[in-house]
């Protein structure tokens, strides 16, 4: 047995039981992810290290599982890679666990696994451990994936949400709102068509280049659920500083603006999967902005604001038209509204 995709065949409860079918399925994953560590098939992946180690985990339950620009597999890999990169770590190894609903077509499973493999290669990480469970029909919604990741932090690097300092400039790596709108567009119930694609992409290469340009990066964050607004608020709170941003500097694709206007959403609160904000000393800002714009994942980078001493813990926006308002964290889920 080599390939997963016996056309028309589906994942069975037996695939998760630990018996022969399970072994076959796992062997085919191993063949896909193809690395020496995984090939050992031990209970744990043994890894040697001597420096600071970053370790993270995330579960992915996105609906729908395929969307313009990606799928749940790609999301699962890039999401964890990015979480590691955000503390200045070089992502090295990932685990991948899946909970699969009985009846899920094997050909789709293979498609997702292929996607994870491609994403892992693009990010330069290896998937070295995993687990597969199958639940009865109705026990899960098609497929849920968890990835955990480990990365190494070079000495001298101390990047944290607590480290933002007064005077820092804030750089955003690109357009916001793409992922959330792509997902909404792919959900039929909203009944609109859009060309917007998810921005799911690995940011570790970009972070690496930023760190080469300056060792004095204070904070990095990828604004996922809750959007840029929530991420900035968390940093303001954790660092005990105020943040000011300029609405007109924030890059938003026309189509995302249009979809948001139509649905009554605010791009500042919509999830992103391939963007970061960097808090950097003012002096280093031009250099870092340049480095980012020269990287394919940072072409639309912009300086969007700065860290200030007033209104500690709060984020204030200078609006397009010249006024000022507070930018709060996302509270309830945004529902479409008209009145």
């Amino acid at each position, binding site marked *: 047995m080599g390939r997963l995709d016996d056309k028309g065949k589906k994942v069975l409860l037996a695939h998760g039981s630990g018996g022969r079918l399970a072994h076959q399925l796992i062997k085919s994953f191993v063949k896909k992810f193809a690395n020496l560590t995984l090939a050992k098939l031990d209970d744990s992946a043994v890894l040697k290290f001597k420096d600071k180690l970053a370790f993270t985990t995330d579960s992915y339950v996105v609906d729908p599982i395929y969307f313009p620009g990606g799928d749940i597999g790609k999301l699962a890999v890039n999401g964890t890679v990015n979480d590691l990169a955000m503390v200045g770590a070089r992502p090295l190894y990932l685990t991948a666990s899946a909970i699969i609903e009985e009846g899920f077509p094997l050909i789709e499973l293979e498609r997702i696994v292929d996607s994870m493999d491609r994403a892992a290669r693009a990010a330069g990480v290896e998937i070295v451990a995993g687990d597969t469970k199958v639940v009865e029909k109705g026990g899960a919604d098609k497929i849920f994936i968890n990835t955990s990741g480990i990365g190494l932090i070079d000495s001298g690097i101390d990047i944290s949400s607590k480290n933002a300092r007064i005077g820092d400039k804030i750089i955003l790596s690109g357009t916001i709102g793409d992922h959330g709108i792509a997902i909404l567009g792919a959900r039929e119930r909203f009944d*609109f068509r859009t060309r917007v694609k998810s921005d799911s992409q690995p940011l570790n290469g970009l972070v690496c280049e930023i760190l080469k340009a300056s060792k004095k990066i204070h904070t990095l964050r990828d604004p996922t659920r809750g959007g840029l607004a929530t991420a900035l608020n968390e940093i303001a709170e954790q660092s005990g500083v105020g943040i000011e941003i300029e609405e007109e500097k924030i890059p938003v694709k026309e189509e995302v*603006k249009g979809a948001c206007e*139509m649905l009554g959403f605010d791009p500042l609160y919509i999830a992103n999967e391939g963007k970061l904000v960097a808090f950097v000393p003012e002096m280093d800002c031009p250099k870092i902005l340049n480095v980012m714009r020269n990287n394919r994942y940072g072409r639309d980078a912009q300086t969007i604001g700065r860290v200030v001493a007033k209104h500690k813990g709060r984020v204030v926006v200078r609006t397009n038209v010249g006024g000022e308002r507070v930018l709060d964290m996302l509270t309830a889920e945004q529902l479409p509204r008209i009145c």
Partner: protein
Amino acid sequence: MCLAIPARILRIEGNLALVDMAGVKREADIRMVSNARVGEYILIHAGFAIEKIAKKDAEETLRLFREIV
């Protein structure tokens, strides 16, 4: 009250129109707007067109803003 946005008509089929709102395509019921034509802008509220927006009126409005100086 009432989120309503300007959208451009791409296609008309009876009482329904396919509209473009800054690249986002949607369907809208146009029974409330008489002689809507492809290429014109309409105001959409909750899936229905409630009025046509004459481009020249929009331009005139902008001109009035600027004139206020």
